[in-house]
């Protein structure tokens, strides 16, 4: 609070970047967590909430006749252009926001003050919702070849890995320790995913400290152990996801890549995904394209291409496809690394798992996947998202790219995911919001030190409560699709308007098919309920049905296909978050606005108790067991 000098400024204009409409006029408030703008000129009270942690940059533009412009770019691609009457007010808001958006101390992050009034027990249950051991069990681990070891319980193997890791049984402690000395930051090869059907595994690690000629016997044994854990294949792939030049450059620094001559039966491959700096610049260019006012075809297409963004997305996708094919078709295990094995490696491994295993395409599975490949394995969310005041060169949209890859898959395979686009956007929002503890810090050890598990809440139970609006109505169920084989031709990659132009309401279809279908689904359920209700009544009735026994006299005479006429039918009863973008903008205001949002949810839905959510998940996990023949 000490950063807020001017909590309220009146006569502030909010320019609509997209349309030419008259600027709104209203009041700007600064709270401990949010910037709130209340539009007084509109007939209906309209509020714009911006979470401080979502602010990426604040700029003071040169003074104009109308006042002092303040331009705010958010990490969720919201852009707000305010004009404040008094230069002094503007400056104070500006300096406050600079400090509020990037605190210096972790304790100042929203998660530590966020209080949804939940019992301690429920909070703790929330943190236990995702148990990675269960996922390893699902893969059949421990088994003859793989074991879960606590070799890292005191972080003596690697301080950015979790205490429990999965390594080949054949790799003894000496091998593990030896290998860790030969891998950058001790990030040894560990299992990421085991494809149960043929024992091929995806493993991940960091680059070897090979320099120009160094080698390490234990590391070679480690790779051998991984290869031999898959007796069906005489070789294994070692994939370096960096461009070859980058890898070669690292050799001069005593790092580098595996020499095929030193390791038995490995096939070494480069997959050129660019580094975090290239990605950061690319996103910056993409942002500029998105902010062009009513871009022409030419502006848009050239801008999109010059940003290179979709090319990078394609590179990540190509790598994921390569891994999935190697595992499924060639039955070969794959070891993946980049430099430190926490950016590109996380992207590629999680994508491959998603392609291979339908479980990860369910609500629960996707949460598990993010916990496992990103959070547990030490993706540096804090640095990459710029949660705290720090080195701007560490910031990079690595996780955004992964989320986008998932979206691209959804576009190609609309019936294979249990969740919809809004779920991805919600997760993406919370990676930056710092409202929940999951994404704070850089690794498991740091989260322990920050007492995340004692002091903050986990995101996942909150998402499950809102499951209804995140559901994909086109989902065909768990067993309909196994492996996905996406197309990676350039035209298969679409620009994700829903993410990058999400707050430009004019750029989205007015009423998306998704809403339509979600309401169809709930209508279908109502009909089913009615039908079964009728069936239950039937035994008690003799002879022809009296009309008053029927609770819905009009239904019979309704049009032949009621769902086809729903736009009229459901306009009266809006499904959750009908207006695209608008409600999403308020989502970060969980504690206060959430309640309001929930009331807007479909009325037929009973409010979820947290425990119900867990129960549902459990039963789902049971149903969701892969039925491999």
């Amino acid at each position, binding site marked *: 609070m000490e950063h807020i000098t001017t909590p309220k400024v009146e006569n502030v204009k909010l320019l609509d970047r997209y349309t030419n409409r008259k600027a709104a006029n209203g009041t700007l408030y600064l709270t401990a967590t949010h910037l709130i703008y209340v539009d007084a000129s509109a007939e209906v009270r309209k509020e714009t909430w911006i979470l401080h942690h979502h602010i990426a940059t604040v700029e003071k533009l040169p003074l104009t006749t109308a006042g002092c412009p303040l331009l705010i770019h958010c990490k969720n691609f919201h852009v707000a252009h305010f004009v404040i009457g008094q230069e002094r007010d503007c400056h104070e808001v500006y300096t406050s926001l600079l400090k509020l958006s990037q605190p210096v101390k972790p304790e100042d992050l929203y998660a530590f003050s966020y209080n949804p009034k939940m019992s301690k027990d429920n909070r703790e249950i929330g943190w236990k919702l995702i148990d990675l051991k269960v996922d390893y069990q699902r893969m059949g681990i421990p088994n003859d070849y793989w074991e879960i070891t606590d070799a890292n319980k005191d972080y003596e193997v690697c301080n950015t890995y979790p205490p429990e890791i999965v390594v080949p049984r054949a790799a003894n402690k000496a091998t593990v320790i030896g290998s860790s000395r030969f891998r950058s930051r001790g990030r040894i090869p560990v299992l990421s995913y085991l494809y149960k059907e043929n024992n091929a595994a995806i493993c991940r690690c960091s680059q070897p400290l090979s320099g120009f000629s160094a080698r390490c016997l234990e590391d070679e044994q480690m790779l051998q152990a991984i290869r031999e854990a898959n007796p069906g294949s005489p070789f294994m792939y070692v994939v370096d996801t960096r461009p070859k030049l980058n890898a070669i450059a690292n050799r001069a620094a005593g790092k580098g890549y595996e020499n095929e001559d030193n390791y038995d039966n490995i096939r070494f491959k480069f997959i050129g995904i660019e580094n975090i700096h290239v990605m950061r610049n690319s996103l910056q260019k993409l942002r500029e394209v998105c902010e062009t006012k009513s871009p022409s075809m030419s502006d848009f297409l050239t801008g999109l291409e010059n940003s290179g963004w979709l090319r990078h997305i394609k590179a990540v996708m190509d790598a994921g496809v390569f891994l999935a094919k190697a595992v499924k078709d060639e039955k070969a295990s794959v070891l993946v690394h980049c430099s430190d094995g926490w950016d590109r490696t996380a992207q590629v491994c999680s994508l491959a798992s998603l392609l291979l295993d339908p479980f990860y395409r369910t609500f629960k599975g996707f949460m598990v996947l993010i916990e496992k490949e990103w959070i547990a394995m030490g993706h540096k969310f804090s640095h990459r998202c710029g949660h705290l005041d720090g080195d701007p060169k560490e910031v990079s949209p690595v996780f955004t790219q992964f989320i986008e890859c998932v979206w691209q898959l959804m576009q190609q395979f609309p019936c294979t995911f249990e969740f919809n686009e809004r779920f991805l956007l919600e997760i993406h929002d919370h990676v930056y919001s710092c409202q929940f503890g999951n994404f704070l810090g850089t690794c498991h050890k740091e989260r322990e030190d920050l007492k995340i598990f004692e002091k903050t809440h986990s995101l996942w139970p909150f998402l499950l409560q809102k499951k209804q609006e995140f559901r994909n109505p086109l989902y*065909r169920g768990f067993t309909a699709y196994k492996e996905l084989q996406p197309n990676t031709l*350039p035209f298969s990659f679409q620009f994700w308007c829903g993410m990058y132009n999400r707050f430009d309401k004019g750029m989205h279809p*007015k009423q998306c098919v998704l809403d339509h279908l979600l309401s169809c689904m709930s209508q279908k359920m109502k009909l089913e309920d009615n039908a079964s209700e009728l069936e239950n009544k039937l035994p008690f009735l003799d002879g022809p049905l009296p009309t008053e026994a029927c609770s819905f006299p009009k239904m019979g005479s309704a049009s032949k296909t009621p769902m086809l006429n729903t736009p009229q039918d459901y306009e009266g009863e809006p499904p959750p978050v009908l207006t695209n973008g608008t409600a999403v903008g308020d989502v970060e205001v969980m504690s206060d606005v959430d309640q309001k949002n929930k009331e807007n949810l479909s009325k037929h839905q009973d409010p979820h108790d947290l425990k119900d959510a867990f129960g549902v998940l459990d039963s789902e996990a049971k149903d969701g067991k892969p039925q491999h023949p």
Partner: protein
Amino acid sequence: MLGSGAKAAKPSFVSYISPEEIHIKEPIEKEVNPRLLPGELLLCEANTVYKYIQEDGSNRGTYGKLVCTNFKIAFLDEDSASDDNEPQFKNKIVGENDITLQCVDQIYGVYDEKKKLLTGQLRKYPEKLIIYCKDLRVFHFCLRYTKEEEVKRIVSGIVHHSQTPKLLKRLFLFSYASAAPNNTDGRNQTVMFDTLEDWRDELERTKGNVKYKAVVTNEGYRVSEKIYKTISKPPYELLKTDDLSSSLPSLQDIQTAYTRFKQLFLIDNSTDFWATDVKWFSLLESTNWLEIIRRFLKKAIEVAECLERQHTNVLLIEESATDLCCVISSLVQVMMDSYSRTKSGFQSLIQKEWVTGGHGFLDRCNHLHKTDKEEAPVFLLLLNCVWQLVQQYPPAFEFTETYLTVLSDSLYVPIFSTFFFNSQHQKDTNTTGESLKIQSGPFKFLTVWDWSVQFEPKAQALLSNPLYAEKPKPDKSQRKTTRFKHQRQLSLPLTQTKSSPKRGFFREETDHLIKNLLGKRIGKFINSSDEPHNSFREFYDSWHSKPVDYHGLLLPCIDGPEIKVWAQRYLRWIPEAQLHGGGTIATAAKILDLMEEVQSLQVKMDEEHSQAISRDVQAVPMLRNSARLSSLFPFALHQRQSIKPALPTSTWKDLEDEDDLVKRDDEFVDLTGDML
């Protein structure tokens, strides 16, 4: 490939392995005869022609017979002889390996690895023939194993019949009509606009009869040969005039852009295709095709703004008023009149604006190869623009993108008269007996709107949109009050824009009108270029800020990211674009499943309620249990599956394992299990 002479030299055209070494099947021995339509004559044929499945360097393919008739070029192999390999979405007239003569875009011969365009007389005969089709299929035929005599006959036959100038009466249309008298009533609720009554009805429908009347002015085509004898006459009142030839891209621009654009999808070989990787978007941009679509949509919004908001009538002007005018006035009506978004309404619209409106289909499609200069894909441009609307607002349209795709294909099927005349006058003079010396007329032609000619009912089901939100039938009392007013606003403009193509025919009267207008109004309109733009933007923004009414005015989003490539039409023959179990068809299939469930529940409830008459649950059988359909469905064909792996790992196993298919029980659990 046009404009890619350099590419022709690529060695990918050489077969280092001769087809015999790799193919499995022996050349066919049993005689396969082409299936001929009434009036179709076999002109020439060649045996032992090798057709590549795809030019991917693998040389996989089949031997067969290549024939040329007065209707089509057809490749016949063993598969086509047996019926067990029927594609699911079969066109009854044009088979998978058939190319109608009008569908041939360009023919190339390959001589010693070099590609040459074949147009007229040939001195030397190629060892390979590549046929590029207007529906974007590409055929590669190897003639190396064919007898020299047969090569000569077939190559010159094909080139002659498909590439050289032709008389109108030599079109297959006439042979077919005389050999197969058409007794069907193919009107299908589509208003043909060939009688005075049709026009009166339309004026009645649009409430235009308050100010407009239908008159027979052009009886015997005394006024103009371009239009039909029945026209509605506009009263002289003030209007806004928009000269399209100065405010929109020219026909030449459209033709150039489309020619470049289609090259992106006419794939010679997969290697080239993969190489487009880095520059895909700039290639797309350089064609300018999407920008042209955008500009036409924008212009249509501007016109709609005048009509809807300023209540000003608009007179669209163009030299002949039969090209850009047709696009704009059709688009405006699709946006403003929800009837034009039904199947019969859209078909009536095309009859009105294009067929009787005098769009020169023969010249624009270059059906007769008289001159290349007149060619321009104007009608295709309309379909591309409408597709943008269809994909932005699926529930507003009764038809699907598949409908638009097959409609675009029908442009090249000369058994329907719809797209094979330059005007109604031309049709009339060529139909009646008096001008026909060879035949005794009059002819009765088929219309393309009788979709049963091309498709079986189950295939036709794919042309209807399951998500279409039907217009609710209003109460009679309501109709009087609200509807009338609404319709008035819609209707005046409608008939007015329709009256646009009149510049050419009312010579004296219109010239007078134009002179008046030029003096007074136009100058103002054209000079104040800023004013309309701003009001346009305001109109556009304010519409977009309100909830959409699928039965009211519909404006497309026209910002760069919103204009997309019509993937179904342009990518459907490219195996590399295929997704197993994905694509828009997966969505469609799932929606149909849901619909069926709702319907069956409805039926169940009706029965419980009053033992009501059981209803037929309509379904599209092909889409049932279709989790693993190819994204190219309904156009994907079994033989066309890609065999080239994306990355150097082996091919994925065929995914159509029985075990993989959805079990319905399982789905039910999934849909309902945790919703409570």
